[in-house]
């Protein structure tokens, strides 16, 4: 091995090592940041139960909320049930409203009108994803809330208004993931279906949609996770009343809006503030579950 060759080899090695360090370093950094956040939220969130001695069962399943009630009167009461129910109902309604629309839009985009879809519908969906959530919230407050009040009755601030605003917000997530999933299907599936004499509708309904189901499910679950974590927009239209709703026109409160309402005003280290962290921890755990579900749904694709 002559000197020039050795030099080139060394240079290559150096290049590769540097690149490897950079890539591994960045990956480690992402993992480290995530871990640090999880540890911090868990530490803060568990204080309520470990230091303030609030029962976990009561926290999860009681709807009594009065963090300032003095201990002499049985306080503080920190039941988060109304908020969890509010979160589940609004995100559930949002998915119910958004998923069918999003999936049909994805089918249109990929199968019915690919050129027209790519030129008009695709940018429209992308634009929908780019609108800041405060704009959705304020538009909801000014346009949607009065509309609900006049058309359906009630105060206007309602589960329905929250579901609609969240539904529009998660529509792009579900639509783009469903479209990607449809696009990724091998063309042999479609060709075989047509060869067997299927109509376009039969091909879409009986072959393409079932084949793309894992991807569509992933989209729905990620949409649900996004709806669950959204705070700003939903806070402006749901009224934030701490009670369990009896109708779709009743105001509700969600975990996220309860956290944002009080976080800045409470003093850190107080039981009240700790309880807000516990609610954050709950959201984190829920998101973890959603991501696990999404991964399980995506696994179905590999089996096919």
């Amino acid at each position, binding site marked *: 091995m002559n000197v020039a060759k050795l030099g080139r080899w060394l*240079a*290559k090695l*150096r*290049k590769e090592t*540097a*690149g490897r*360090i*950079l890539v591994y*370093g960045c990956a480690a950094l992402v993992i480290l940041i995530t871990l640090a956040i999880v540890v911090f939220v868990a530490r803060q969130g568990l204080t309520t139960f470990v230091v303030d001695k609030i029962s976990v069962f009561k926290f999860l399943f009681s709807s009594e909320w009065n*963090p*300032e009630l003095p201990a002499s009167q049985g306080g503080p009461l920190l039941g988060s049930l109304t908020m969890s129910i509010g979160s589940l109902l609004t995100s559930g309604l949002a998915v119910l409203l958004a998923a069918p629309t999003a999936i049909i839009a994805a089918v249109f985009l990929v199968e019915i009108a690919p050129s027209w879809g790519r030129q008009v519908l695709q940018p429209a969906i992308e634009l929908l994803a780019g609108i800041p959530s405060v704009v959705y919230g304020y538009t909801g*407050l*000014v346009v949607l*809330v*009065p509309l609900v*009040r006049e058309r359906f009755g009630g*105060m*206007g*601030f309602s589960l329905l208004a929250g579901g609609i605003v969240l539904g529009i917000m998660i529509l792009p997530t579900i639509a783009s993931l469903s479209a990607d999933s449809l696009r990724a299907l091998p063309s042999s599936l479609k060709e075989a279906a047509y060869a067997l004499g299927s109509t376009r509708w039969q091909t879409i309904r009986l072959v393409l949609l079932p084949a793309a189901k894992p991807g569509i499910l992933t989209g729905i679950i990620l949409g649900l996770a996004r709806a669950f974590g959204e705070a700003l927009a939903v*806070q*402006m239209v749901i*009224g*934030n*009343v*701490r*009670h369990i709703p009896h109708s779709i026109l009743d*105001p509700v*409160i969600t975990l996220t809006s309860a956290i*944002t*309402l*009080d*976080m*800045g*005003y*409470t*003093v*850190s*280290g107080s039981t*009240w*503030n700790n309880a807000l962290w516990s609610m954050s921890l709950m959201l984190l755990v829920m998101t973890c579950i959603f991501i696990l579900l999404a991964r399980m749904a995506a696994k179905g694709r590999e089996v096919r």
Partner: protein
Amino acid sequence: MSLVLALAVAVVGCGKPKETPSTGGNTGGSTSGVTGSIVAGGSTALQPLVDAAAQQFMAKNPGAQISVQGGGSGTGLTQVLQGGFQIGNSDLFAEEKLKPEEASQLKDHKVCVVAMAAVVHPGVGAKVTNLTKQQMIDIWTGKITNWKDVGGPDVKITLVNRPASSGTRATFKKFALDGKEEAKGIEQEASGTVKQIVSQTPGAIGYLALSYLDDSIKVVSLDGVAPTKENVANGTYPVWAYEHMYTKGEPSGLTKAFLDYILSDEIQKTLVVQEGYIPITDMKVERDASGNVKKL
């Protein structure tokens, strides 16, 4: 070539942002002796005033850097106690939020007064311009649920509240409702949103700091006393609170200079009034943390 790449990677790898000197003295054209950088944050109700005052102060003292943040009164008090902020802004006395041993470490600087008024939807305000304290309490505790019971139109009452932890809500509850527990109503974090909701929801009642009032909503007097600056200053209108700027111990340097500037006539007579607050220098009554009022 490879050397350049390796070098570039090395530079990226340890490319920390350059440290900027935090204390002054090297800003060259500084005409004033006050230099350094501080953070003042907390109460969102006080934020516009502190922000505007800081801009003016920095224009006069190029060596001074004052960063103004929101985050809420709780954040202000916590951060000043932990040393994150040099000045913690709060709508409430520290004694009302913190443990006694924590509150005693903080020094209170009352910079102005903010008053809150009950506001109603214009449709209600056309008929209801005054409520007695008892009527106010009955409305907010849910005993009266229709405006016709207090001489208004036959419309259901919708309560629009601030979050339970908010200083504005605490002040309104303490001085307008005698501390009575409010019935469940709509809760909104920001005063601007409260105004928007009251202005568009028939039968709505809420409360706002005087600086937020405009024609889209109607103001209600309490026991025949209108919520004007004069009535607050002379002690006849009771629903008001101090805006506090807390420091940990005695202030010094830039912190002291900035607090002195806010308390000077230059700010009290101009910005404080323009932003809708009542100058601390105008107050003819004084109130302590437990709510006792005495004439000055």
